[in-house]
């Protein structure tokens, strides 16, 4: 699969109630803001929040699936803004830019309820 300039990539995912527990175990990031409802509220959050790197993994997955596999993804750079909430749909949307040398460049973001929780994502994919 090769990506064409102007092509859209999209992935929709809803983090279920326990995804942060599974991701904490899988990744080793046990920060209690992700797994302990009481702790999260004590530090002023609305409740447990999604790991930013889990959301970045959704952005990476969208790119790998669109490009034809993990070997295509050469770079992904993101900015985290705001908090990802559980049980609320996240949409990753990207647009393939004009080719640059050996790679295709894709600009994307991840949006949840109108809030852009990942911004200015830039990916480079082998052509």
């Amino acid at each position, binding site marked *: 699969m090769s990506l064409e300039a102007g092509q859209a990539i999209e992935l929709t*995912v809803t983090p279920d109630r326990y*995804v942060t527990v*599974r*991701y904490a*175990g*899988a*990744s*080793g*990031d046990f920060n209690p803001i992700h797994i302990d409802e009481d702790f999260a509220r004590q*530090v002023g959050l609305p409740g447990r929040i999604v790991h*930013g*790197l*889990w959301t*970045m*993994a*959704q952005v*990476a*997955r969208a790119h*790998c*699936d669109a490009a034809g*596999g*993990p*070997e295509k*993804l*050469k*770079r*992904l*750079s*993101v*900015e*985290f803004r705001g908090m990802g909430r559980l049980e609320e749909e996240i949409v990753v949307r990207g647009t393939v830019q004009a080719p640059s040398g050996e790679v295709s460049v894709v600009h994307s973001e991840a949006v949840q309820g109108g809030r852009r929780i990942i911004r200015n994502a830039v990916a480079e994919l082998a052509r």
Partner: protein
Amino acid sequence: MAVNTEAIGKMFAPTTYAVGREKVREYAAAVGETNPLYFDPEAARGAGYADVVAPPMFAVVYASRSVVPALFDPEIGIDFAMMVHGAQDFRWGELVVAGDEITTTARVSDISERAGMGFYVFETESRNQRGDPVCAGVWTNIVRGAG
């Protein structure tokens, strides 16, 4: 209170992570992957890999073990309770597969202060057992109230 920039350039001892097949599967399932390359050794071998392939973002698993000591290093002085992950950049080389041993080195590449917030930037370099680069990471953490 100004941020302490003396730790810029500080290097941390390398860590080595042995990539296991079940850990790759556990990670891939936790992030919602369905590609058989991540789960099925036969599918991975059929595609030319020695064992199941780690999703690119599995870099978090093998490389963060080098970053965590920096987050708690008193010479750097991050207030962990006030820290948020601001940005992340990964560049990938060879794909990582189960059975690989990944060695990661970390260094403090920058500490700065803007708008009352501290910006702490760490760089990691990860290589497999053959010395091939597999991932270079730039981890930007923001500490509120550090400026």
